[in-house]
């Protein structure tokens, strides 16, 4: 089973090799990189290309590991024991155990892709404990004293936005890749995949403007691929838009590219200066 790309994902050969090697070694792949470099999209692409279901665990800062594994629904059980109007057997705790995302990936009958998104949001304990579970491919449900063993080892992709490194034990158990921001050439390919009918000169003008905008200093959240795609969509839906306007340095729909109000102000001022000169 080899991963060679998907319909809406432009794959860099370097990354393809890393994905394949991680799958063969049965190791989680940790992806870092600026927002908008396609870290999350990669998991979707792998799932699509290998025809496996995708299970997404969106990590939140308050999350405890057990929530990702399973949940013991005490409230329903209390309710059932009080009113007794359900078909569940109240004395069987097992009926009140619901699998979390990692649990679902383990009990699935077929091999799945498990995406653990934005792991850096959780604290270090969560990260290390989770890797223990993924290493052993099993966890215990203490309430019913049962061990859940993974039926099929999922393909695991973990993403992180953090600049700082994750803990050493964590890194020791993952393969690592840092996705660089796409070059203008690669970006052209990405745009072609999303807008097959886009005119050449418009595509070029948009990409040139986009990379120029990314150079504006003092921006906290630089526009990324997602913003570029939305921006092109906005431009195309405006009947009054002419490609030549971009050449003059005008940038319509700037708000699509800059979502923080501070960034928007900085970019507007920068552009205003540019046009006057």
């Amino acid at each position, binding site marked *: 089973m080899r991963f060679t790309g998907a319909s809406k994902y432009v794959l*860099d*050969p*370097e990354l393809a*090799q*890393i994905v*394949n*090697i*991680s799958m*063969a*070694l049965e*190791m989680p*792949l*940790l992806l*870092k990189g*600026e927002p908008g470099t396609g870290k999350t999209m990669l998991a979707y692409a792998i799932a699509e290309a290998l025809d496996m279901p995708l299970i997404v665990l969106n990590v939140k*800062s308050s999350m405890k590991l057990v929530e990702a594994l399973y949940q013991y629904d*005490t*409230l329903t059980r*209390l309710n059932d*024991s*009080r009113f007794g109007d359900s078909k569940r057997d109240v004395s069987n705790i097992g009926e009140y155990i619901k699998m979390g995302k990692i649990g679902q990936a383990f009990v699935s009958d077929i091999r799945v892709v498990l995406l653990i998104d934005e792991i*850096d*949001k959780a604290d270090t304990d969560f990260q290390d404990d989770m890797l223990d579970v993924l290493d052993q491919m099993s966890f215990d449900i203490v309430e019913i004293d049962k061990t859940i063993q993974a039926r099929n080892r999922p393909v695991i992709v973990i993403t992180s936005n*953090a*600049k*700082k*490194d994750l803990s*050493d034990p964590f*890194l*020791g158990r*993952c*393969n*690592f*890749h*840092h996705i*660089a*921001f*796409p*070059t203008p050439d*690669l970006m052209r390919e990405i745009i072609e995949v999303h807008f097959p009918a886009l005119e050449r000169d418009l595509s070029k003008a948009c990409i040139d403007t986009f990379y120029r905008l*990314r*150079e504006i200093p003092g921006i*906290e959240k*630089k526009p990324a691929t997602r913003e570029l795609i939305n921006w092109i969509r906005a431009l195309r839906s405006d009947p009054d838009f002419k490609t030549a306007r971009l050449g003059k340095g005008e940038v319509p729909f700037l708000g699509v590219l800059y979502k923080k109000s501070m960034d928007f102000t900085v970019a507007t001022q920068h552009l205003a200066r540019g046009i006057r000169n």
Partner: protein
Amino acid sequence: MFVNFFYKLREVGIPATPTSFLRLQKAMRLGLISSLDDFYTSARAILVKSERHFDLYDQVFAHYFRGMDLPDPEGIELDEAARMLLEQWLRDPEGVAEALGVNPEDLLKLSPQELIEYFLKRLKDQTEAHHGGNRWIGTRGTSPVGHSGHHPGGMRVGGASMNKSAVKVAMDRRYRDYSMQGLLTQSQIGEALKRLRYMVPFGPKDHVNIDETIYETMRNAGEIEIIFDRSLRDRLKIILMIDNGGWSMDPYVDVVQILFDYARNQFKDLKTYYFHNSIYDYVWADPPRRRKPQKVEEFGRLDPETRLVIVGDASMAPYELMATDGSIHIEERNLIPSIDRLRFLAKNFRHAAWLNPRVEMEWHYVRTIQTIRMIFPMFELTLDGLEKAVRHLMKNN
């Protein structure tokens, strides 16, 4: 196979583990690596766990497979130092002239190339003579000027171009930019400071307490008894004291500003004061330190549970810290030396931390930092340092 390559990586400071090396062997045995290109990518994914080391990896790879010169680690740092000096020179020629001990006009005549040469020569003299000299061109090559989180050029490294051989790709050193520290953004600081809070019950009872509800329901023989609690609110009191005077803090203004902005949004009960160099009889509630003085003695009456955070480089002449009348401001006549003021604050606020924007490596060279560290636990003003400081501030003892 490639044992030497592995040791070379470790030698230059990439923390590649033996386990990961065995894993690489396994990958080769599985027949997954059939070319040097594959080896370049796979070995990096398996052995190197941070993009900050990608550049070093490229250099070692090029050296090992092509016999490229491997610059000694000091050389790399020197590179950095030279670049930073150049930047500083562009921004502030007079400051650099002063630090190098030359006439600013003479310095302006030098081309950047000549400046670097001059700088390297000076550096060499210094190493040999072991003078304290101007610390910021010390041999470690990490100038404080470079530490303000400035990220020149941004990350403009392209994706792989696979028409080239792996060695060529490695020789490109595409990951050079990553070896530097990135900009501290508000959200990153937010992550670090998130745990700095003290939750207390507040407001109406509108929160179901599940554990208590179950317990009370059982006591009630199964008749459901729902227990409500007040929800928790953050009630942490924080005093932030910032050194905002003098050129020595200038390079760090940006990063302190971000910290301050975040703190203002995050904490309900935050008081900010300013001082210059060290704390004498007064701190000020207004940044120019003129209109709203606050007697330091009065802090003794505040809640000792308040968290005190001081931000400053703690670098000054020893007498400014130790002597009575140590303040460099002529209009401030003080009878108690600054060091006693600091001790007073540290005694009154059990939970206190000093954040220092200078790199920890340099603390060792500055006497007043050493002294102040004995009074306040000191942390680097970086993400890691912030996290440690927060952990310290929330300790219960």
